[in-house]
């Protein structure tokens, strides 16, 4: 069971505020991803039956929104913005640093499953560009030095479990 008691309780709490079941789909998918790290086929099936929606309505939503991962991602999901404001302040170089350090290209996951590196479009924090999001947290005003320090810290976090 992917949708456990915790998740179904969270969704039940939202129910009174929404006039349709379908409205609960995005929140449900967020909960599933929070637990699983990604949205599997089984998750799509469970979400569909939980909200009594056709599979297609769930799958098309999962695939429309970029935040829903359709395959497993690393423990640290590193998402670096490369669009205009971050680009103007050196994001491309930071992406290269990350590729070199992690030994993977953008869009890939390290073989040990620790990191996934994704280039994303605008995180809406252009005033503190370049910006990177790792899991839930934003890291701003990055340069090569602070980026590498951050990566050291993330490595350590993984080691410490």
């Amino acid at each position, binding site marked *: 069971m992917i949708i456990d008691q915790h998740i179904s309780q969270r969704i039940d709490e*939202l129910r009174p*505020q*929404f*006039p*349709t*079941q*379908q*409205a*609960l*789909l*995005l*929140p449900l*998918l*967020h909960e599933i991803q929070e637990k699983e790290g990604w949205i599997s086929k089984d998750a799509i099936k469970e979400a569909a039956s939980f*909200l009594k929606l056709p599979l297609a*309505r769930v799958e*098309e*939503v999962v695939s*429309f*929104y*970029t*935040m*829903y991962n359709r395959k497993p991602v690393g423990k640290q999901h590193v998402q670096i913005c*490369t*669009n*205009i*404001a971050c*680009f*103007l*302040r050196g994001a*491309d170089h930071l*992406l*290269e640093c990350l590729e070199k350090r992690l030994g993977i*290209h*953008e*869009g890939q996951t390290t073989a040990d499953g620790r990191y996934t590196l994704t280039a994303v*479009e*605008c*995180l*809406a*924090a*252009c*005033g*503190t*560009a370049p910006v990177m*999001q790792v899991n*839930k*947290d*934003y890291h701003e005003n990055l340069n090569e030095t602070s980026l590498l320090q951050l990566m050291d810290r993330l490595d350590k976090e993984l080691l410490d479990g």
Partner: protein
Amino acid sequence: MAEVLLTKHNGIKDNHTLSFYKAAGGYQALEQALGMTPDAIIDEVKKSNLRGRGGAGFPTGMKWSFMPKNPVDAQGHPKPKYLVCNADEGEPGTFKDRLLLTQYPHMLIEGMLIAAHAIGSNQGYIYIRGEFYREAEIVKAAIKEARAAGLLGKKVMGRSWAFDIEIYRGAGAYICGEETALLSSLEGRRGEPRLKPPFPAQVGAFGMPSCVNNVETFCAVPTIIKDGAAKFAAIGTERSGGTRLFCVSGHVEKPGVYELPIHMNLKDLIQHCGGVRGGRSVKAVIPGGASAPMLRGDEIDVAMDFDSLAKAGTMAGSGGVIVIDDQTCIVESAARLLKFYEHESCGQCSQCREGSHWLARMFNRIEAGQGTTEDLDKIAHICGNMAGQTICAFADAVTGPALSTIRKFRAEFEEHVRLGRCPSKPEHYVRPHDHHASARL
């Protein structure tokens, strides 16, 4: 400098809490508004000349007045009306919502309460972009505080009026900032914009009359009610009142959010942000978020209000000011912007789905030195077939950077064509592998 209305307490510890907000006079406007009729509130907002801060600049009071007074369904039962806050900030260059959400959540809640009273709604939603985990948590905590204090819930401030707010997190789709796409998304669907008519005031969220406003728009409401429309209107121009949160990014010394009179001069604004980094000069400015056509460095002596920028051939949009210095390749900047649009087009309308992709590929190719002079003319042709032809304004937005860069910096594009490479890169520069370059899916 002129008066700051919304962001007086930037960076002060605990500025997001209810006690801080109340101590600074928060929720007095709500008290006042609850003593006013809905019409009187709408009238006051109209008089303030507040225009929507999301991008389109539509007069807020007028938008509220479009909401039906006592809508009923086919069986004669009253229909619910929904109030929706658009916090799906995502237009490149725009980052003001984040400041307001994290430091002034109660101002937003108060603004929504006043708006809800004005339009007669009992349920509000804040649609917040999915990446804003932390921001959503802060707003959620503020909602909880407001409920506990009787500001939200079954009896708002002890009156016989119920209003509550629920947070709804997006999931990574810029298009959901378009209000009808946002409503589709709020219903748990793909964020695809809807045909208008019907307009959201008639058929909005869940098929019910709905009103959607931007975070900053709501945040401006308490000060309008508390200090009066006249004061707010006096700050701006004749047709556009108040201050504006300008988001300045790119090559300025001090990027950030600056609350300034809405008709602030762009040149002064850049100076206000410490000028261009390293003493360089301005090559181009995007004055209102990525969709706004670029201004050349010699065109920036212009007021930033909606009408002045429209007259200058661009738009005030979302208030995102991106400054580009003289060392930057404009073709590469444009290619980057178009990659964004290619990635974010929902793909419903033919012109936008295929056109945003086509343009992104062309700009990419020209930047790589594989463009031709015909390509440069073709771009204008493509844009001409996109603008004004689709369900929502996204296709028009795509043409903003595409057309303006090619018109205003044509020589630089031609230089790429002539040299067969980007002139601002070393001669034997090897482009990093681009995973998005292939059209094989």
